[in-house]
């Protein structure tokens, strides 16, 4: 399985290459990708240098251009696709069908991958993207079990990439409006879920209060670990009980089920976290590289040492095993 790793800065890309990534994915410094955070991402010149560095080390670079073009501003997205091809990117990760058509028509030789933001989770949807736009790989939404992935891989002609580590989502990828409702900015079109300008933390005695816009997301006691300030990971009160109504602040970690994912026919493992620092990249990529190398030798260590890097300092195998059912 190919190890696809995140990079939000040139330094992170260097860290990912050094730690053993097969592929590094990144985005331009604008709304064309789903991690449009202040100070993050690549200028055209930085990406050109980054691609040169990665290729020199035998590592591929993918560009995430996976938000939905805003009406009347499509040129920004078109230019991102054109520039990515000119720079020599190895694949472009897209979600919008208009943009997929643009890429197919203008750059018929470009390798196109379908972003998780497209939320294609069944055979018909994936075949449609493959037949209409020549998509060669699909990043599967985090809603499928191992058995479902295995069945899907037996029926489709394209490669599948699954999330292996990092932040979880409420499994409505590309369709979620929670952040947009609270802040007016959408992860799907502006590339920001819970934009930092709308996030506020307050230390209240020993407790930490997190807010998004006018919504209190959580009040963490002194002994509790903190999660991202997204509404889906908020703790709310309903019917006299307070708790995580959507999902708990926890990270995905598939270290324990890597052989099963390989057996299910998965082509690539994606590590989430372009917004994370290079220390995270080095440790997570290094750990997964070691695990994959062991599996290649017929060995497997199911224990993960990455919990300190996880959101809420806890991890899950998510929908792959569906332990909650």
């Amino acid at each position: 399985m190919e190890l696809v790793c995140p990079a939000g800065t040139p330094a992170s890309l260097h860290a990912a290459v050094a730690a053993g990534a097969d592929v590094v994915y990144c985005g331009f410094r604008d709304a064309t990708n789903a991690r449009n955070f202040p100070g993050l991402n690549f200028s055209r010149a930085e990406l050109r240098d980054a691609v040169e560095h990665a290729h020199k080390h035998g590592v591929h670079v993918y560009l995430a251009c996976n938000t939905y073009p805003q009406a009347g501003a499509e040129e920004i997205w078109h230019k991102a696709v054109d520039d990515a091809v000119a720079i020599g990117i190895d694949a472009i990760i897209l979600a919008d069908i208009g943009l997929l058509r643009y890429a197919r028509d203008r750059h018929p030789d470009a390798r196109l991958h379908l972003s998780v933001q497209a939320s294609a989770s069944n055979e018909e949807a994936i075949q449609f993207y493959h037949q209409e736009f020549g998509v060669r790989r699909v990043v599967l939404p985090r809603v499928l079990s191992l058995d479902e992935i295995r069945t899907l891989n037996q029926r489709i002609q394209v490669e599948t990439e699954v999330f292996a580590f990092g932040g979880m989502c409420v499994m409505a990828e590309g369709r979620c409006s929670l952040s947009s409702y609270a802040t007016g900015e959408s992860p799907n079109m502006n590339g920001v879920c819970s934009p930092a300008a709308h996030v506020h933390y307050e230390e209240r005695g020993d407790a930490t209060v997190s807010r998004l816009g006018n919504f209190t997301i959580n009040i963490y006691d002194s002994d509790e670990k903190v999660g991202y300030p997204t509404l889906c990971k908020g703790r709310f009160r309903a019917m006299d009980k307070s708790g995580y109504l959507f999902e708990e602040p926890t990270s995905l970690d598939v270290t324990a089920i890597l052989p099963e994912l390989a057996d299910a026919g998965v082509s690539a493992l994606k590590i989430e976290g372009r917004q994370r620092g290079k220390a995270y990249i080095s440790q997570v990529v290094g750990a997964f590289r070691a695990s994959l190398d062991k599996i290649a030798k017929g060995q497997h260590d199911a224990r993960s040492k990455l919990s300190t890097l996880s959101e809420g300092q806890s991890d899950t195998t998510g929908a792959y095993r569906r332990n909650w059912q």
Partner: protein
Amino acid sequence: MTESYPSFTPFLLANPFIRNAPTFLVARICHHAMATMHHRYRPVFERIAEQEAFALLISPTDLDLQFYLKIDADHPELRPARHGEEETIAAQISGPLPALLELLQGSSDGDALFFSRTLRIEGRTELVVALRNALDGESIDLRSAVAESFGVMGPAAKVALGLAEKIYRQLQHDMNRTADALTSPTATRLLGLEKRTSAQAATMAEIEKTIQRRNRHTRVKPSGTAKDDFALPANP
């Protein structure tokens, strides 16, 4: 802005010296450190120049000293913070000095430090995020920066720094052992209390279930009289 509890690091031992150090000397060291950073890591300041100039309050939770950090592409500033300038501060970052230095060098992940609550942030989050990303985009090497700032005495400074780091690590080890020795009786007692509380909570849950079961069996059916606003009309 909030005051945090002190962190148990060897920097606590430096506080008597810091408290009594002449203000101009501390200000001079800060100024020199910032000038070195600005000269050596110019791209950090260029990257962050996309934002307007802003000031942060850096609060090491193991030092009796807070720093005023002004981020400006051309004229950045680092100095001891003064009372009464809270109004000019866009955000406050609090945490143990070793963690703050690791963050500066990119050897620790900012989100992980935040998840574990080692690091706390208040104020304009987007500016802190922008600074973190700009710093992380560079390969900052504090040891080399310090050595360079000593000019021809650089190699000697590097040796002295190596020795200081060794002493620091030994001190941290000793302080951790001391902390364990001091807290272990309380920790053992707490563990016992936790077990008893868990057992009592389990008993309470069982009692609650039993009461609910009994209530279900003994519940009186609604009478369905005209006085009952929610009663269905009687069958004709």
